[in-house]
């Protein structure tokens, strides 16, 4: 565990190379340090805890919160929340437990998080998955 803390470290407080060298991304995200999200990992729990560990899809799981940099390194991981916990609640807990976001910087989050200091979410009520839609369209057209 000590080794994990040594390897998984928060990134340096500067603009990542992936954003800096990309002219399309730089104007929007020059203060972004990385991205975070939650995922569910199947868990085996005692029967007394099964109810609280069941997630919204019906499986027993633990909610794992992870932040990563744009070059695919984990920078912070918090595991062990029960599957029923909401992502934003896990984020709140992570920020109180050492996931520090420097002043003026932020991470990218998905629409499940609230737009707060240190977290940049997409616009609501506007189309989001344009690229995926594009892929499915081309598949359809070419077939």
């Amino acid at each position: 565990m000590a080794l994990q803390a040594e390897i998984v470290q928060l990134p340096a407080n500067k603009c990542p190379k992936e954003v800096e060298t990309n002219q399309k991304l730089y104007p929007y995200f020059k203060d972004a340090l990385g991205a975070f999200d939650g995922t569910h990992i199947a868990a085996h729990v005692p029967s007394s805890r099964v109810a609280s560990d069941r997630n919204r899809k019906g499986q027993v799981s633990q909610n794992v919160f992870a932040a990563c940099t744009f070059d695919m390194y984990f920078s912070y991981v918090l595991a062990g929340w029960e599957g029923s916990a909401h992502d934003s609640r896990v984020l709140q807990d992570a920020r109180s437990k050492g996931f520090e976001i420097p002043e003026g910087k932020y991470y990218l989050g998905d629409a499940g998080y609230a737009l707060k200091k240190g977290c940049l979410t997409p616009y609501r009520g506007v189309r989001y998955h344009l690229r995926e839609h594009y892929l499915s369209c081309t598949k359809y057209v070419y077939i």
Partner: protein
Amino acid sequence: MYISNISFPDIQFELIPCRIGKTNIRKLSIRPRTKEELFNLRHSQLLNVVERIFGILKRKFPILKAQPEYPMQSQVKIVLALTGLHNFIRKKSTQSEIAFASQQESDGQSCTLGKFFANLFYLYYKNYINKNEMTRY
């Protein structure tokens, strides 16, 4: 063949209504129309890194899908340790992630690769302990 509507664009063996009709032509356009949509497009380009990293982690270490019968405390530690291992492999490995994933598919190779990384990790760990002991005295 089943008939369905456009909300299931990907499923095979379905007859989807013609998209080139007048009513659906706006839905078909994939270019962002407003500045909010453009922002969302750029946002999704960057945010997908975190989705990819979860995919890689779960594919590389199938124990995360296996629901092992360990105490809860160990299950939490497994996740933390594997994320550390992921970072370590990424830092030290000369292979790209794609090559690693494709090699995992062929069963014979994955075992030796796993052993190789385990050895590397052990060496690094020993190094780390030595360093710590040196600083202690």
